[in-house]
């Protein structure tokens, strides 16, 4: 039970984990992440890796949309840029894994700045539509610049190897993907303890007021775009190593909508929202699959119904969360925490 906050410095006040229970739970969570690959079978490990990749991408989008208030429906295109960069560097240059990944992030960040340029002139919905337009144009480039991108067939990526050890199984990939995701999320959490992060939040709340307060809008908006695209590029790079093939159809508009849906369901403007949303939205279709298998004796051709039911549930989740729980899963988590704060004494 917490009865007060006795903090003596701003540093303590801004710390990510302020209370003992938070530290304990974080330690348990990290231990669980370490123990996970030993407890899960191959299929669930595949899902765990996919969740981690989506968490990285969703956290990036959350920085842009949730914290800076710039809506992007072209985030998948940045993932694609990262994935193509990684695939190209891996097959043509043969540079080490980590350099490829960072390069993927940086190239995506450069594209993010380019796409973000209209953001000073247009905002809100218009910006969302401009990013859709940019993603369609990039998609066209992926198909037609076949000297670099391999055209419609894409690029096959050789298995990831570090120091001569080939990481082809999900068990081994997990040990690369999960730590990178953890570091990226930690970076995002720390970003909002700095001046840059606070500037982003000021821009979200009222951009004109933020400019009056001395925040150069263009620079910070572009910075937000580049950071978000860097996250997307890293996620795309991991994606390329994970699925081992990158084609123009790997990152459709639906992926952008999926990521936006993930942060809406999770909770915009909260780091935990991006994480919870990505986990939930990645696992929900799998739960549906189990549900469909379960009712398959009762309903004929349940397998064929799976894909449309997923589409309906995907839409219903977006609509339902926006109407009934606009703050998303983050708010639900907060509510549970509040409930247990005074726990055995008051419920």
């Amino acid at each position: 039970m917490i009865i007060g906050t006795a903090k003596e410095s701003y540093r303590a006040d801004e710390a990510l984990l302020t209370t003992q229970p938070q530290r304990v739970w974080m330690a348990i969570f990290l231990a669980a992440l370490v123990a996970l690959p030993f407890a899960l079978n191959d299929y669930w490990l595949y899902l765990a890796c996919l969740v981690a990749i989506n968490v990285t991408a969703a956290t990036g989008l959350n920085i842009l949309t949730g914290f800076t208030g710039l809506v992007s429906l072209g985030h998948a295109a940045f993932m694609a840029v990262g994935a193509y960069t990684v695939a190209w560097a891996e097959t043509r240059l043969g540079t080490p894994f980590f350099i490829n990944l960072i390069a993927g992030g940086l190239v995506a960040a450069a594209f993010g700045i380019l796409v973000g340029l209209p953001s000073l002139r247009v905002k809100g919905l218009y910006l969302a539509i401009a990013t859709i337009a940019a993603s369609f144009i990039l998609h066209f480039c992926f198909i037609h610049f076949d000297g670099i991108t391999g055209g419609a067939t894409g690029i096959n990526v050789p298995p990831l190897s570090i120091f001569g050890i080939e990481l082809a199984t999900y068990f081994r990939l997990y040990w690369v993907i999960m730590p990178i995701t953890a570091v990226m999320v930690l970076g995002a959490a720390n970003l909002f303890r700095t001046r840059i992060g606070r500037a982003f939040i000021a821009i979200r709340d009222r951009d004109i007021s933020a400019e009056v307060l001395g925040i150069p809008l263009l620079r910070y908006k572009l910075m937000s775009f580049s950071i978000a695209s860097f996250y997307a590029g890293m996620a795309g790079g991991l994606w390329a190593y994970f699925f081992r093939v990158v084609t123009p159809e790997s990152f459709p508009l639906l992926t952008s909508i999926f990521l936006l849906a993930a942060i809406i369901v999770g909770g915009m403007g909260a780091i935990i929202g991006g994480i919870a949303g990505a986990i939930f939205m990645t696992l929900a279709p799998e739960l549906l699959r189990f549900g469909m298998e379960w009712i398959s004796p009762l309903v004929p051709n349940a397998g064929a119904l799976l894909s449309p039911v997923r589409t309906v549930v995907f839409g219903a989740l977006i609509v339902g969360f926006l109407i009934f729980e606009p703050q998303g899963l983050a708010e639900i988590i907060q509510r549970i925490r509040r409930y247990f704060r005074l726990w055995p004494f008051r419920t």
Partner: protein
Amino acid sequence: MSGDLLFFIEISLAGLGSGALLALTALAFVLIYKATRVVNLAVSEVLMLGGYLFFAFAAGLGLSAWVALPLSILGGGLLGGIVERGVIRPMLGENPISVFMVTVGLGSILVGMAELIWGAEPKSLPAFISTTPLFLGEAYVSRKIAVAFVVAGVTISVFLALFRFWRGGVALRATATDQAAAYSCGINVPGVFSVAWIVGCATAAGAGVLLGAIGGISTTMGVFGLSALVVVIVGGLDSILGALIGGLALGLIQSWASTYLGGEYTSVVTFGLLIVAMMIRPYGLFGTHEIERL
């Protein structure tokens, strides 16, 4: 007349035909945006649903096309009314992005429902427009496209006249200009919202039937709505004239691009145009420039 010029005229006419459909769909966006300030991306899916409803009434129940057409338009309007009352009304006044995402979610629900009911494979609508070609001078025009052009033209003219002379149209314009003032003049603003959604979705459903008659229906035909969205952004989100001119212009440009550059250039030209238009006039060619106040 030389062959090249004739060919150019023919593809331009075809472009105008599809442009008229774009304008009709854009009209649905504009109607809904004008009244409720919601960019309804689900218009694309209502369009698709209109095509499928026509399919269900005409092919499934065996009704005559002239019964099925009004029924599918009514179905679209009914859906619009339900969505407005059930989902959009509680969301009004929220952040526009949230409302936009609600319509994206609704679109996903509609696509999934259509797949559940009718299956995912593309279908063709029973023919109700004769296929004998039409000649304007020497230029050949597909009759379906000509019919689509005439229907879209007549509908848009009717709407323009209604906005000018009908009380409901004036009420909608008043609501679009200033909601509070409209309220105090005794205009039933929530009623205007409902009417705008019903009429907008009905228009989209009608456009869907026409589009399905030309190119067949599939659950992915909602992509057409994205082109119409480009039209409204370029033309101005709250301008019917912008929807008309933008629609025809985009139809022409798409037709030229796909003939002279190749079909795969259509989307890149469309969206390139969008970005250029946005950089020059962010509020659209005929849209109202909104001044932001703190």
